[in-house]
């Protein structure tokens, strides 16, 4: 567009942007700012008093809070590691299988694997609680059928297994998302590239490793960051399966449940919105940090293969 000597003010841009900006500000930016602000105050004698970073000093300095926080953070990191090690490789594998032209009923598999993703957490939590129930569940019987009954333990009730079990349930639910994204990425690889590879004698497995995988790396990056954000905001599954106290002995407590107990309280514990906001702020910073690392360190190096 040529620059006119006197450009009229383009009202329409503002008018068209306004609804989105207003809605976004009202339901996203204001609450976020409100949370950040809340974390700097404390309720003293029924009124909110500005206390600077005192809530954060309590969170990290008082063992009653810090032990819980570090425990939740550690559990959350493990939750994330399981997703990265299990969910995403399986997602890539499923996508690779689905995109194989020789596979029949691929549309059916695609749908079947994706369905759990659209289920409510509540349904998933209760269904798996029942499946794994030592009393009425099908898991003990199924394992008995293949002679593995001795390996069955009440996983959700054991400190050492509960978190991993829940992570795997979450993986089961969400494996459809990386699968779909990778599947789309695989389909978008131009045929010419594949044909050129075949001409050079690269077929089968080595074609996947040397040609396709590098081309879908950006998608894998996006999936990693989505997993990261999703995992560090996770709450629902733990809450429905283990309750707000994230038992046994806080072994499944993640930042989301820790925040919930602090903010809303639980049973006799009266909620403390200010400490809750401080935890929410820490979650925000952790996620922001993770996303920044990805955006500035990883994604800039992934822009190599564009066609």
């Amino acid at each position, binding site marked *: 567009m040529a620059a006119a000597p006197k450009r009229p003010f383009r009202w329409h841009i503002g008018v068209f942007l306004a609804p989105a900006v207003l809605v976004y500000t009202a339901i996203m930016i204001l609450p976020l700012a409100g949370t950040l602000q809340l974390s700097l105050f404390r309720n003293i004698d029924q009124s909110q008093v500005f206390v600077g970073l005192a809530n954060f000093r309590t969170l990290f300095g008082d063992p009653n809070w810090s032990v819980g926080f570090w425990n939740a953070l550690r559990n959350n990191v493990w939750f994330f590691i399981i997703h990265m090690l299990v969910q995403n490789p399986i997602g890539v594998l499923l996508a690779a299988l689905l995109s194989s032209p020789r596979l029949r009923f691929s549309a059916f598999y695609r749908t079947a694997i994706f369905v759990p993703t659209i289920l409510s957490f509540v349904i998933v939590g209760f269904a798996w609680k029942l499946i794994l129930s030592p009393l009425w569940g099908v898991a003990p019987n199924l394992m008995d059928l293949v002679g593995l009954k001795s390996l069955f333990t009440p996983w*959700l009730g054991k400190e050492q297994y509960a978190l991993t079990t829940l992570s795997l349930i979450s993986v089961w639910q969400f494996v459809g998302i990386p699968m779909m994204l990778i599947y789309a990425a695989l389909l978008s690889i131009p045929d010419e590239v594949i044909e050129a590879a075949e001409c050079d004698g690269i077929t089968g497995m080595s074609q996947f490793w040397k040609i396709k995988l590098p081309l879908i790396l950006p998608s894998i990056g996006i999936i990693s960051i989505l997993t990261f954000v999703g995992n560090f905001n996770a709450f629902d599954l733990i809450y429905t399966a283990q309750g707000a106290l994230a038992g046994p002995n806080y072994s499944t407590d993640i930042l989301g449940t820790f925040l919930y107990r602090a903010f809303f309280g639980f049973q006799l514990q009266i909620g403390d919105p200010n400490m809750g906001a401080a935890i929410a702020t820490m979650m925000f910073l952790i996620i922001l940090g993770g996303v920044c690392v990805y955006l500035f360190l990883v994604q800039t190096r992934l822009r190599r293969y564009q066609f």
Partner: protein
Amino acid sequence: MTTKLLTALLLGTSILGSAGMAYAQDVTLNIESWRGDDLAIWKDKLIPAFEAKNPGIKVVFAPSAPTEYDAALGAKLAAGSAGDLITCRPFDKSLELFKKGNLADLSALPGMENFSDVAKAAWQTDDGKATFCVPMASVIHGFIYNKDAFDQLGIKVPTTNEEFYAALDKIKADGTYIPMAMGTKDLWEAATMGYQNIGPNYWKGEEGRTALIKGEQKLTDPQWVAPFAELAKWKPYLGDGFEAQTYPDSQNLFTLGRAAIYPAGSWEIALFNTQAQFKMGAFPPPVQKAGDTCYISDHTDIGMGLNAASKNADAAKTFLSWVASPDFATIYANALPGFFSLNNTPVKMEDPLAQEFVSWRDKCKSTIRSTYQILGRGTPNLENETWVESANVINGTVTPEAAAKKLQDGLDSWYKPAK
């Protein structure tokens, strides 16, 4: 993409509250409650009985969901749209409302004299000077057992600890029944039906509870560790996979006749009566030696208070005086077996199991749960920690001594008893 990310980020960190709505009319009293289960009883029995005696006052029972009650009530009170009568949770939740000026002082209400100090303790200021809710009901802890199973195995109802474990051993050796239906998955079962159920016999009920509040006793003292040591002994008598057994699982195990003993609260009575196909009986927590005084947890659970902003305060007070009367107690206790009236006048109840529970009031000393009054504030929260530690002790992952020490350390961090 970045927009989406940011959206996801912000969604995760933003917190949404909810507000409820209510309406008020001139001659109508609205009752706020979390007991949606009781709707039919209020509508068909209690309210008609009151309205027949007090023409000109209409009463509407308007419950909300238990999990939303506290938040919804808070929002309604703030907005000035809450009902005239407010069903009170015990202890701090209601005390908080009173301190904020949402609940009126009812110390002088006619009918209050019908209640003992223990009954009123849940709705009094710490110094006991002001009472702000009329006590409605309490729940009693004990053990419900499968009478058919006991008869079949020739087991006598245990009264002492020794007999209790002998009975459990016998049931276990026979193998037909799981000796005890309890799980640790939901945590609170272990604390409420376990620790708080058998504990009063060791810490001598009110004596220990008040000494703990005064700081004269500690949770690490032998009488407070002993109940944990008992819980640790329960492990072999629980069903397979009890670590992942939830509260409804335990209820079902017992009502399906697969377990012989159920550590219970009296609120189970109504449900068990409709579901169990066998005869049931109940026994109080066994004492250590024959002849020891027995103590029971008779925990105050529900009360009713007056919204300080109510425009119909006089009519509401008439209603509350009626709630404090033996008339109300009789209808309520019979309609809801297992929720026992706190009224000093004995109430005649029809349900045999409920009668059994309430008969313990005569021979045992009553107390309330140790972790509620005053000690139930603060972070880490003693009640919630007791859930976690009781479950740990039964799971065998923590020793009774270590559990008690953890609780006392947590309590010490915020509670300084007045000397």
